[in-house]
């Protein structure tokens, strides 16, 4: 038998660079390599054991005690909490997140002033619009999302970009390169999806909600280079870094604007042909979600598309064990709205916001990556549940 191949993970050195990408020395690089492999090992070697334990120990014990199988995620989660293998996997996974944060933060804090200086130098005035009036929503400030100390928005000093630089530098660890060299596989997948279905469509104005540092909006902006793209986020460090990163990568049709996606009165009705959100809604709240949906209804131009991409919803067809695994980050990786978002009927939210049922559509997107170097989600069989590079589209074509 041939020796098992190595896990196929690319080396951190293959990660795409740009002028504000933090420099990593030998050991900092290897720290990321170690953490990425550890994550991969947890997903492909340890987690299947948790699945076996569920089937062979947890579920039978539950059935023995209750006379039935777990009927809901909640019951299954409680039962799993006592399973030693689940405890080990969970403790290791949580710990890996914390190590990744420390590795990323120590990397970027050590070059903070250079990163800020380089960002200032690169930003083209017209491409960044900050608004100090924008308040950080309570659903962002309650806990630090995915155990990222200081979250997206903390400014440790004037013109700070460290939160964004840390997010960018360490993304490789969590996703094992599944999102591609520039962590933009989702955006590239989205472009492919639209091109295939609407080959002649040319949006003039595009709005990206909760853009972060612009990972997934840049491929869209590049694919529709004649379009004017507005990318909004509440977090100034992400926007500054995003604007500098875009400039460095030669993308010049995006304006990064500080704004709350739930209140976009500054933009006119029917003023965008494409409104996109990529892995954003799960970090909001029910109330914000309603307002975001109404704002998109108001701002979308006739003939335009509103598209949200997220992990698939929990529905009756999804096995309970899979639901528990997908829900892990909600409880254990500071994703407080994750459960709720994946439980609600998003179509109904859109209809309540004024979309017609016949305008709604659904679809799937998998990350499009440089296959020479990076694993392709479409042929990946290590299931890391909520972190898989494959998403569900909830959209409207008005």
């Amino acid at each position, binding site marked *: 038998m041939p020796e098992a191949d190595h896990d196929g993970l690319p080396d951190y050195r293959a990660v795409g660079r740009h002028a504000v990408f933090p420099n990593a020395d030998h050991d900092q690089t290897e720290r990321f390599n170690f953490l990425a492999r550890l994550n991969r090992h947890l997903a492909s070697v340890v987690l299947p054991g948790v699945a076996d334990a569920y089937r062979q120990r947890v579920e039978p014990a539950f059935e023995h005690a209750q006379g039935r199988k777990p009927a809901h995620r909640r019951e299954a989660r409680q039962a799993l909490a006592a399973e030693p293998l689940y405890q080990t996997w969970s403790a290791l996974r949580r710990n890996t997140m914390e190590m990744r944060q420390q590795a990323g933060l120590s990397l970027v804090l050590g070059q903070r002033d250079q990163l800020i200086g380089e960002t200032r130098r690169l930003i083209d005035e017209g491409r960044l619009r900050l608004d100090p009036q924008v308040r950080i929503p309570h659903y962002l400030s309650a806990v630090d999302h995915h155990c990222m100390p200081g979250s997206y928005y903390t400014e440790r000093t004037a013109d700070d970009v460290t939160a964004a630089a840390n997010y960018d530098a360490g993304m490789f660890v969590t996703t094992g390169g599944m999102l591609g060299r520039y962590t933009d596989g989702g955006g590239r997948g989205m472009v492919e999806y639209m091109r295939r279905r609407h080959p002649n469509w040319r949006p003039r104005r595009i709005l990206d909600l909760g853009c972060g540092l612009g990972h997934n909006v840049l491929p869209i902006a590049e694919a529709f280079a004649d379009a004017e793209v507005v990318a909004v986020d509440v977090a100034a460090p992400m926007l500054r870094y995003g604007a500098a990163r875009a400039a460095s990568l030669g993308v010049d049709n995006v304006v990064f604007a500080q704004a709350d996606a739930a209140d976009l009165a500054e933009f006119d009705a029917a003023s965008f042909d494409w409104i996109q959100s990529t892995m954003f809604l799960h970090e909001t709240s029910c109330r914000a979600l309603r307002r975001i949906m109404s704002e998109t209804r108001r701002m979308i131009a006739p003939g335009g598309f509103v598209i949200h991409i997220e992990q698939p919803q929990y529905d009756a067809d999804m096995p309970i064990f899979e639901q528990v695994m997908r829900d892990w980050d909600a409880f254990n990786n*500071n994703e407080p709205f994750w459960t709720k978002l994946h439980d609600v009927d998003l179509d109904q939210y859109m209809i309540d916001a004024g979309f017609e049922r016949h305008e709604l559509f659904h679809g799937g997107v998998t990350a499009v990556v440089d296959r020479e170097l990076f694993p392709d989600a479409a042929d990946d069989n290590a299931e890391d549940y909520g972190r898989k590079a494959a998403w569900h589209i909830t959209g409207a074509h008005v």
Partner: protein
Amino acid sequence: MSEPFDAVALAGAKAKGKRPYFFKDADVERVLSIVMAVAGELAVTRMRLDTLEQLLIERGIVAEADIEDFAPNAAQRAERGRWQQEYLARILRIVQQEREAIARPHEPTSEAAGERLDDA
């Protein structure tokens, strides 16, 4: 330039939100966390060593076989043996100390010793 700050402390800062523990005993989880950090650093060091070896080979300073076939002489063997012994003693220190404690079952804690100092 901006004001000085403690990058080491900041990098290790706790994220907002109470931390979940998964094991019955939080002490075990704390130890696991430290062990994994050490495991990570060991991997980093191993990679650094490999980098060095590769560079030495590439530049013709040593051949790969030189490393694989390396046979330490008597003095080197002794030195390496000593290193291994000390290394094991270092990482298993707590085992040594718990064993020494068996012989001294009646030792006071420092706190108890201190209390006795109140009237002595």
